[in-house]
C-alpha cells in the first residue's frame, strides 16, 4: 500500500514524477478533480447534432455521457447511467430519439435527461410498484453544463467552472475562431487506441520541441523548409495552448522551385507531391496550428487538413484518441479532395503523426521500474508562458501547472 502522496519537486513545473502515469489512486482522483471537476470537456460538434432528437454518446474522462439536441434547439448532456440500477441508457454511438429508455427495466427519460417514467410504478394488479413517496424529480442521471464555442460542444459536471469563453481565454478563442469561422461537416471518424496514460498524449500534443526530431517525414523528403517561423501561445491557466508555424513566402517559392529541378530518380523525393498540394484559405499565412484545451481537446489545422481530437483515459495505462476529420460545408470537390489527400499526414497512419501513437507507449514501458524517479521538462527554463520559436517546453509545463491546480498537488 502506498503511504505517501506523490512528491512534486521543482524548480517550478520542470519535474514530473513518473508515478503519475501509472498510479491507480491518482487516476481515480483525476476523474473527480479534473474530468468531473471545474473543467470543460469536449463532447462533440454542433454539426453532429443536426436536428431535434439527434444524440451522440461519448465520455467525460471515463464517465459515459449522452449529448443530445432537444426540440427547443438547445443542447443537453447527462450521464449515460440509468437512475435505477446504473445501466447505460443509450447504447448506440449516435442516433435520433424522441426519448430514451433503459433496456434493463424500461425506466424512461426525456431528451434533457429527466426521469419521466418508471415501468410498473403503480405495481401490477395492486401488487408491488414503487412507494407512493418515490419522487421521479429527485432521481435522474447527473446533468452537465453545456458550453458551445464556434460549433464545439463542451460539457462540465461542475457548477463552479468559468464560462466557456473565460475558460478558453481571448487568445485561444481567437485561434479557434480562425479555423471554425464557418460551418464544418464531418468527413470521417477514426479511433486510435494508445498504449499509454492519457497525459502522455496530451503532453505530446503540447510539446513543440519533439516535432522535427521524432517526425522525420518532412525532413527526410526535405519538405520542412516550407514552414519557418513559429511560436507557442499558452494561456494564463497553463492548460490551453496553441503551437503554430507560418509559411515564409519567399523561402517557400524558392524551395518549391528547387524541388521541381531535382532529378526524379532521387531516392528521397516524393513521387506524388499532390499529397501536399493545398490551396490558400487562411490569410494570415499560418500553415500549421495545433490548439489544445485542458484536459483533452485538440483542434488541428495542418495546411488545409482540419480535425478535432478527443483524448480519453482508459485506465492508467491506456487511452483512446478520437479523430474527427472535417471539411467546410460548401467545399468544392477539388477542395474536398485536397483535404482528403492531406489527411494522409495525420491520424493513426499519418506520415507526420503516426509516431505520436507509439511514443507514449515507449515512455509508459520505459518508466515501468522508475516510479520514484521523474521526468525533466526544462527546455526554455521554468517559463509557462507564450514563446517565440518552438524549441521550448513552456506549454508542457503549462499543462502541469493546470493539472496540479485542479488536483491540489
Amino acid at each position, binding site marked *: 500500500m502506498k503511504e505517501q502522496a506523490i512528491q512534486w519537486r521543482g524548480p517550478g513545473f520542470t519535474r514530473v514524477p513518473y508515478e503519475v502515469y501509472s498510479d491507480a489512486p491518482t487516476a481515480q482522483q483525476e476523474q473527480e478533480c479534473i474530468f468531473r471537476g471545474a473543467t470543460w470537456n469536449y463532447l462533440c460538434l454542433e454539426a453532429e447534432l443536426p436536428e431535434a432528437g439527434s444524440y451522440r454518446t461519448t465520455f467525460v474522462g471515463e464517465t459515459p455521457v449522452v449529448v443530445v439536441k432537444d426540440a427547443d434547439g438547445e443542447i443537453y448532456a447527462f450521464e449515460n447511467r440509468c437512475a435505477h440500477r446504473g445501466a447505460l441508457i443509450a447504447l448506440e*454511438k449516435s442516433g435520433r430519439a424522441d426519448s430514451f429508455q433503459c433496456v434493463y427495466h424500461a425506466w424512461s427519460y426525456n431528451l434533457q435527461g429527466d426521469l419521466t417514467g418508471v415501468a410498473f410504478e403503480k405495481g401490477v394488479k395492486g401488487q408491488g410498484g414503487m412507494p407512493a413517496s418515490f419522487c421521479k424529480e429527485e432521481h435522474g442521471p447527473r446533468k452537465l453544463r453545456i458550453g458551445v464555442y464556434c460549433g464545439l460542444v463542451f460539457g462540465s459536471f461542475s457548477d463552479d467552472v468559468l464560462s466557456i469563453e473565460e475558460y478558453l481565454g481571448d487568445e485561444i478563442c481567437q485561434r479557434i475562431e480562425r479555423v471554425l469561422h464557418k460551418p464544418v461537416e*464531418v*468527413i*470521417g*471518424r*477514426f*479511433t*486510435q*487506441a*494508445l*498504449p499509454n496514460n492519457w497525459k502522455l498524449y496530451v503532453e505530446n500534443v503540447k510539446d513543440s520541441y519533439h516535432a522535427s526530431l*521524432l*517526425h*522525420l*517525414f518532412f*525532413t*527526410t*523528403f526535405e519538405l520542412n523548409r516550407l514552414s519557418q517561423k513559429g511560436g507557442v501561445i499558452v494561456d494564463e491557466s497553463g492548460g490551453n495552448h496553441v503551437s503554430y508555424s507560418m509559411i515564409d513566402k519567399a523561402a517557400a517559392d524558392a524551395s518549391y522551385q528547387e524541388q521541381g529541378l531535382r532529378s526524379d530518380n532521387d*531516392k*528521397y523525393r*516524393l*513521387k*506524388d507531391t*499532390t*499529397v501536399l498540394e493545398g490551396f490558400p484559405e487562411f490569410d494570415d499565412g499560418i500553415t500549421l496550428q495545433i490548439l489544445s484545451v485542458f484536459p483533452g481537446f485538440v483542434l488541428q489545422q495542418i495546411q488545409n487538413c482540419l480535425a478535432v481530437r478527443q483524448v480519453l483515459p482508459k485506465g492508467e495505462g491506456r487511452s*483512446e484518441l478520437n479523430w474527427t*476529420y472535417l471539411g467546410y460545408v460548401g467545399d468544392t470537390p477539388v477542395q*474536398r*479532395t485536397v483535404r*482528403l*489527400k492531406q*489527411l*494522409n499526414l495525420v*491520424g*493513426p*497512419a*499519418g*506520415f507526420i503523426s*503516426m*509516431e505520436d*501513437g*507509439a*511514443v507514449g*507507449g515507449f515512455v509508459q514501458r520505459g518508466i515501468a521500474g522508475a516510479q520514484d524517479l521523474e521526468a525533466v521538462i526544462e527546455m526554455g527554463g521554468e517559463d509557462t508562458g507564450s514563446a517565440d520559436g518552438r524549441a521550448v517546453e513552456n506549454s508542457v509545463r503549462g499543462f502541469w501547472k493546470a493539472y496540479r491546480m485542479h488536483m491540489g498537488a
Partner: protein
Amino acid sequence: MIDLLQLCAFNAAYGQAIDSDALESWPAFFTEDCRYRITNVANEREGLPAGVVYADSRAMLEDRIAALREANIYERHRYRHLLGMPLVESSDDKAAVARTPFMVARIMYTGETMLFASGEYRDRFVKVAGKLLLAERVAVCDSTVTDTLLVLPL
C-alpha cells in the same frame, strides 16, 4: 473471363508480398491511376469519404513504402494476412468487381501477436496488357479502432 481462381491467386500473392516484407512490390498490384483507401464500416455506412490512408495514384503507394522505409519511426513488426474467398459481384474479360474478407494479425518483434484488423476489401480489378491489377481497393475495417499506429498496408 476473370475467374474466382485468378482472384484468389492474386490475393494470395498480394498478402504474401506484404507479409514477407517485399513491400516494394506491393504498389505493382495496382494500376497507375489506382485508388487505395483504408477506412471502417462506420464511415462507409454514413458515406464519409476519409481514409486513414487515402491514395489516388500508384506513386502515392510507392511514397508510402518509401516513407515507412526511410522516415517513419515504429517498432519492428510484421503482418499475417488471412484472406477469404472473394465474393465476385461481376466479372468479364477485362474487369471484375469483388469483395474479399481479410483478417490481419500483427506480430511485434517482442513476440506479441494480436488480431490487428478484420474487414473486407472492396475491389475493382482490371486486366492491363493481360495482367490482373487493382484499379481500386478499399480496405473497410470492421472496427473503428486502430491499435497504436498503422504503417504497413492492409
